[in-house]
């Protein structure tokens, strides 16, 4: 089963799940960061003109260039919960591969190894490694034991619909109940024939077909949602 989910079990038997993020959003995030860095550096180079570009100002600028080029991602990843500004805009973040917050060591390693990922040009090595493992880790991520996950809030707030609740006759497991609740909440986006088609599958539970089956299922959904 192909899936972007990344699952870990932490000590204590708790299962955590996250969605890994592939190259396309990460390339955009990188480009945004590149632009931001470019703006900062342009401002700095203008600021260092009064000091003399081939004198103190030039040295000052080169030192800052070094610091910004190498430490910009590390700084943001540590201080902004694994998100550089570009990553924040795309709703993605760097975490350790046990889904704990990224640490100084791992952030340093993954960002210093950008040099290797860049080889031979334009992050070819990085993209190729990302596409050759399941969790889209580039070489730096593999070395540091980190991965990039999606932390965008996806679910739109579901409105409670005005449906009279009805207790189902059959007892269902939790995942099965969730499916019926989903049916209620997403039925607004489904066409009428499709709703009936879906409801017909569960005729054994609702004992109704067609229009009535849909209505019955929606009422069960409302009951599972707690409107009793």
């Amino acid at each position, binding site marked *: *089963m*192909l899936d972007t989910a990344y699952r870990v079990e932490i000590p204590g038997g708790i299962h955590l799940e996250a969605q890994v993020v592939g190259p396309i959003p990460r390339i955009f995030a990188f480009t945004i960061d590149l632009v931001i860095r470019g703006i900062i550096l342009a401002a700095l180079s203008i600021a260092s003109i009064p000091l003399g570009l081939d004198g103190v100002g030039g040295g000052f600028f080169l030192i800052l260039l070094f610091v910004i080029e190498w430490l910009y991602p590390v700084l943001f990843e540590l201080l902004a919960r694994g998100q550089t500004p570009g990553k924040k805009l795309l709703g993605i973040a760097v975490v350790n591969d046990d889904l704990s917050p990224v640490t100084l060591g791992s952030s340093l390693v993954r960002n210093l190894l950008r040099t290797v990922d860049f080889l*031979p040009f334009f992050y070819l090595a990085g993209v190729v490694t990302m596409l050759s493992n399941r969790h889209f880790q580039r070489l730096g991520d593999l070395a540091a034991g980190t991965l990039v996950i999606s932390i965008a809030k996806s679910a739109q707030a579901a409105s409670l619909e005005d449906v009279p609740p009805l207790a189902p006759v*059959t007892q269902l497991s939790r995942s099965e109940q969730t*499916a019926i609740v*989903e049916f209620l909440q997403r039925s607004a986006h489904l066409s009428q024939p499709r709703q009936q088609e879906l409801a017909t599958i*569960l005729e054994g539970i609702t004992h109704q077909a067609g229009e009535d089956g849909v209505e019955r299922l929606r009422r069960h959904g409302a009951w599972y949602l707690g409107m009793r």
Partner: protein
Amino acid sequence: MNLDKLQIDACMRSGWQALDLGLLMARAWFRTLFVASLLPMLPLAIALLTVFWKSPFWALFILWWLKPFWERLPLFLASRLLFGERPAVWSSMRSLPLKDIIPWLLWRRFSLQRAFDNPVTVLEDLKGRPRRQRLRVLHGKYSDVALSNQFVCCCFEWLLAFSLVALFDFFIPGSFGIHYYDGFGDLTLTGEWIFTLAAILSMALVIPFHSMAGFALYLNRRIELEAWDIEISFRNIAHRRRQRQRPTPAQVLLLPLLVLVTALFTAGTPGYAEAFDGHERESAAELIEQVLQGEDFGQERVVRKWRFKDWSNDAEEAFPEWIIDFLAWLEAHQEFWQGWSGAASWLKILLVALFGGLLFYLARRYRGPLSRLVKSRAIEDPAEILFGLDVTPESLPADVPAQVMCLWDEGASRAALSLLYRASLSRLIDRYQVAFHGSHTEVECASLVQARGIESLSEYFWELTAVWRRLAYGHRLPAGDTVRALCDDWTRELASDTE
């Protein structure tokens, strides 16, 4: 469409996550999809390159322009792979979908959401007005994501070609005339050829990822609009209910039998739970504790290794006082030093002292890890009892061979040979420091002796071991002459110059 065989996890995803899923699909089916995108391209590529052999960029341009066509076979195969089928590339190629190809190669060539729109043409087979309506439904909120996919894949395709050329260039001595900084300003014909081949390869490499990302986005939209995930869950519920209601034939046959058998057996015998005695558990725990305390568990060994002397255990982390004192003293006598040889000189001394102090501090601070660099060697106490025989030198009589012969003549053959063997082991430990261990067998002991490399000694000991084993375990007496010979040799091999 049989959703039970769907190879992807159908659930609600954001557009970006759908793209990632597409890349995973391309990764999983990469070999098939790569072959499917390269194979139709090859004959035309060869023909075009033969025609335009002096300006291969024209061939590349035509191949690139026909890209919507090359994307169709991978997409067609993926739609089969998605439901767990294993389509053959070769046979699918004959039914290469040509639907609606003209618009795709003319004005729709400029479409910015090609990978997303392609399935509607290739798989749903819609044209004209129905196609436009369908696309309006599908696009929805995903237009920007589809656009991003197109943009990134397009850029990456050309960067990949460029990188491949550069990579090739890195590995040949000299260059074939690439000027990295002004694009590909003026290439030689060789350079053009290499770039063209790299671009064709990179096109075939990127097509699977690009079209799968678009396909996944299309699937995501359909999952959303048609609630595939809910259908799968509902089918599972219905399936489980049916199974619960309808017992299998085996159940029908076995159930009465099982009830009967269980009834028969549970009638007479007491339950297992009653047989358990709580006291046994406590005493068992004690016993286990006792056994674990015994000699057989755990080993003591003396390990000797290098380490730094322990000057101040309690203030391990503190910076040594005397360096600070020394620096203070240097500072206090600043004028003196200045008067003596100028500021630079005392600064130098200060720096050297600081550096020395730092080195010393580091050596002390990290003495643990440093001492680990020095190879440590474990030295074990020599064994005292082997095979139940006391092998300490003190337990031996003064003249072993004489004692052995005496015992032999008395008829205590076992005692005689065991004394000889024991004495040999003792001498080997004492004189040759052979590292016998309580767990070694006789043969292992002999091998250890052989490993010492003294030929006559090892020969003698092998023979003695053989004689001893035959007597000890096989109860077969050696001839008197053999014993005598062994005694004589013992004097030569093991007794001679020790006293």
